[in-house]
Every structure is written in C-alpha cells, then in structure tokens.
C-alpha cells in the first residue's frame, strides 16, 4: 500500500489522550485529596470541631459509594438509578447482625459482601438485559423494591428505622466505633476503593468496559461477551457500596430505609456527574462538595435547594467534565 494515498499525515489534534486520564496528574490529585482528608481530624481540631469532622466522615462514606457508582456510570456507561439500594442493604445487614448478636466485624462484613453481592448478581443479571432508559428504570424499580422491603421489616423498626446500641469490633478492637477509629477505618476503605477502581479501570477488564461504553457492537464483534463484563462490574460496584453501607451504620448508629431511597440514588448520581464521570477523583470531589455545600447552604435557608439547583445547572453548563476537570484545568494552567 502506498502511504501517500491513504494516510496523509495529520497532526494529532490535541485532546486528552487516555494516558492523561489515568496518568500521573490524576494520581497525584487524588492522593492530595486523600492526604487532606487524612489530616481532617487535626484540621477540624483547630477549626470546625467534631461537627465538621462528622460531616467529612459522612462525605467520605458516600464517596465510597459514589466512586463505585462511577465504575458503572463513568467507565461502563451504565446509569444505575438504584445504587443506594446497596448502601441501604449494607447498613441493614450490619444493623440486623448487631441486633441478633453478631458483633465481629469480619463475619458482619462477610455477610454484607455475600448479601450485597448476591443482590447485585440477581438484579444485575436482569437489569443488564436492558439498556439506556430502560436500564435506568429497572434499576430504579429494584431500588424501590428493596426500599419497601426494608420499610416493612417491622421487627427492625419498619418505617422508622432502628437505633443500634452496639458497634462491630475487630478482634476486640473498636475500630468502627464513632470517633477517630471509625474515621481512619473509613479513610482506609475509601483509599482502597479509590485505588481499586483506578486499577480496575486500567486493567484488561476495565478496557473492555470502557470500550463497551462507546460501542457495545464493536466490543461484541471483537469477541467479548459484554454482558458478563458488565455484570461483574455491577457486582463489584455493589460490593463497595455495601461496605459503605456498613460504615454508614457504624457512623450513624442507626439504620433507616430511606438510605435505600431513590432520592439517595439520585444524590449519588449527582455526585458522580458533578464531580466528573470516569475519573474516580470526580466522584470523590463530588461527594465532598455535595455534602458540604448542602450543609453550608442549609445554614442560611431551609430552601437551600433553590440555590443548589442553579449551581448544578451552572456546573453542568460551564464545567464540562465536572469538578475534577475544572481542577485539572486550573492546576494544569490549561
């Protein structure tokens, strides 16, 4: 073949290459955010106090769920509108286990993973038969089914939820008790989630997911059964969110069906999109931003959503790629 006729050279037209997305810039930014979070107990001791630290912890727990949701939305193109179900399920398994006299963190976490993984496997196997808007609807439906199922558990508080009088212990150590123990446990889980999702996205498995987001047809023709890859991703995301539910139960010492509500699923989606899809830093930033801004705004007015709404619109309009991209642009001087 003659090069002249077919392949007239064009300069690559800039644009972020995939290398940039998984490259050092994102890694450093993420580590920087995690480092700041790690110093929050010291920072809040000077300014803000335990109230702010509590908020940060709440945001960190939600960030775990949001990062896992980003594996679906950002990397796989699967907009799950039922991700809070795993948060709810994880917290209920934890709460029920504690109520029934199981106190060991490891057996409880084992149960959380088993049940959340099972729920993800069954609902994912059905949901992933659909795509697009139908996938959104069916994940929403499964989320609501779980919400009503949890609400009907009258022996565990029903609609009102249930206060937990115990915390799980790890070989006798109360690392999940509210306070610095739980803070650092959460930080570790968050860091592991952030690392794991990054590794998965860059792996062979993640490459198939990312390609499938753009062209399911192409991925199939090349020889991949995309359904199996997406189902595995759905289960992985469900497991991480289930662990976030466990931490949430420890943090609030309370379980409530509303954790699994569709509003909560929507909030998780907002975190991912606002922060920037397909960059785990985005979901992390999004979670922190939403929790803190909600708190800050609601101090001034009960109608804080009137301010929050337009902010979302502005970010959607002017910060394409979300907060993570905005940060990268400011940081990179682009």
């Amino acid at each position: 073949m003659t090069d002249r006729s077919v392949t007239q050279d064009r300069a690559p037209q800039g644009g972020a290459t995939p290398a940039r997305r998984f490259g050092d810039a994102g890694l450093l930014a993420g580590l920087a955010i995690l480092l700041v979070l790690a110093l929050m107990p010291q920072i809040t001791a000077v300014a803000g106090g335990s109230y702010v630290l509590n908020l940060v912890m709440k945001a960190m727990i939600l960030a775990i769920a949001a990062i896992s949701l980003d594996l679906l939305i950002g990397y796989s193109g699967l907009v799950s509108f039922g991700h809070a179900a795993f948060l709810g399920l994880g917290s209920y398994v934890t709460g029920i286990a504690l109520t029934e006299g199981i106190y060991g963190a490891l057996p409880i976490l084992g149960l959380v993973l088993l049940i959340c993984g099972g729920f993800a496997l069954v609902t994912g196997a059905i949901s992933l038969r659909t795509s697009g808007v139908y996938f959104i609807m069916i994940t929403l439906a499964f989320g609501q089914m779980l919400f009503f199922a949890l609400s009907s558990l009258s022996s565990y508080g029903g609609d009102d939820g249930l206060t937990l009088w115990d915390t799980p212990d790890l070989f006798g150590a109360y690392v999940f008790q509210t306070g610095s123990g739980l803070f650092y446990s959460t930080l570790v889980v968050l860091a592991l989630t952030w690392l794991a999702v990054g590794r998965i996205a860059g792996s062979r498995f993640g490459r198939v997911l990312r390609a499938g987001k753009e062209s399911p047809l192409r991925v199939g023709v090349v020889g991949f059964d995309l359904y199996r890859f997406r189902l595995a991703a759905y289960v992985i995301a469900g497991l991480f969110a289930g662990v976030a539910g466990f931490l949430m139960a420890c943090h609030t010492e309370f379980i409530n069906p509303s954790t699994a509500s569709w509003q909560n699923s929507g909030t998780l989606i907002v975190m991912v999109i606002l922060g920037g899809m397909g960059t785990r830093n985005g979901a992390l930033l999004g979670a922190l931003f939403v929790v803190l801004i909600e708190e800050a705004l609601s101090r001034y007015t009960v109608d804080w959503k009137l301010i929050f709404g337009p902010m979302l619109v502005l970010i959607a309009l002017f910060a394409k790629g979300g907060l993570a991209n905005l940060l990268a642009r400011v940081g990179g001087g682009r």
Partner: protein
Amino acid sequence: MSVVLALDGLVKSFGSLLVTDNVTLDLKPGECHALIGPNGAGKTTLINLVSGTLAPDRGKVVLADADISRLTPPQRALAGLGRTFQITTVIRSFSVLENVALAAQAKDGSSFRFFGTARNEDALNSRARAALETIGLGHRAAVRSADLSHGEHRLLELAMAIVGAPKALLLDEPMAGLGKGESAALTETLKTLKTQIPILLVEHDMEAVFKLADRISVLAYGKVIATGTPEAVRADEDARAAYLGTKLP
C-alpha cells in the same frame, strides 16, 4: 481443508418476505469471494446471518469444518471470523494502537483480569503493532482514533479484524465513502491480505470487486443467481439483468 467458510442452504424470512432464499456458497483458502447485487437483494441480511446477528430459519454456516450456526457474534469472532462494518465503529477515545490491542486481547486468554495495566502489556501491543504495519497504519499508532480520517478508520477496522489471525474475513463495503486513490490503495492491501486470510467481500464498488475477486456471486431477491469468475459473471445474462441499467465493467 479445501473450504474455509461455507454457507449451506441458508434461509431467512421476515414475516412473509423471503430475504435469503436457500443461499449456498463457499470461501476457499487464498481467495476473495465477492458478493454483489442490487439494493434490496439481501446482502446485509446474508452478512448478518454469517456474523451471527441474525439466526437463519434453515441452513447452516460452517467455519473450518465446525458448524457455527448456533453461536453468538462474539463466539463466532473467537471461532475465527473477523468482520468489518459498513459504518465505522471504532473506539474513538482510544488510541489507534489501543483499539487493535483490545481486539488482540479478546483472543489472548481471559480478560477477567482486574489488576495490571492493560496498556502496558507488551505481548498485546506488539501484536497490535504488527497488524497495523500489515495494513499500513503503523505510523498512526499513537494517534487518538477520533482524529483519524475516514479512510484511516476503515483501515483501523481492518487491523482490528485481522489482529486475532482469523480464519476468514467478512468485509461489509470496505470501500464505502473512500476516495478513488484511497480505495485503489485499499484494494492493493486486500489483494495481499487475501493470500493469508480468505475474504468474503460485499462491495458496491464494481471496479474494486472485479480487481479483487477470484469469484463473484450475484445476489438478487435473496437468491444466488450466478457464481463464477469475474469474466464468467460479466458475461452472464442473468447477472446483467439483475443490474438492469447498471453497467458491469
């Protein structure tokens, strides 16, 4: 093995409309077998039957002596059927190299590997690079594939199809949308390629077809009305009638 790919009595109808009417044809090693026919002759349906997007009502598709009629499209790809599309479908956000490496990955063990950076796998990358060199796109390996020209997209598709060393290639209008120079160059590439991997070609560009094909089958109303060498088909009355108004070169 004297036949690589065989379509054996394929029948497909949509409702009462018979779109594929008992089609039997085969593909031998080293040859390019072109499938031509006027619009609505059922070429696309036939392609879909071969690649597995549609299931035949009757008949079978045999690849290297194995019946692949009941396999899904991904399974057929793994069984050794490479294909390209009429409309380009590459992963636009991936680099050219990564597109081909993705295709190489499909045939290289399990892709349920959650750790380890795929882009750094030398085995996949070097196989991808070799396929790109074969197609003549080696110098564009690092470019984001969204930035390729239309002609280069077609070449990239071809590289993705051949990287797994398929037993047969199914090309659906590879010349569509190419300029004259580009399609001449692609014809040359395919001429070399068919000696290694036999090609079942569906194409509208008659000049390319008559240059490339060792055999041509003419499809009309879902039926193969003529099969033979380009010279024989050119002389065939039925084939001429099917292309009424269209002059065969």
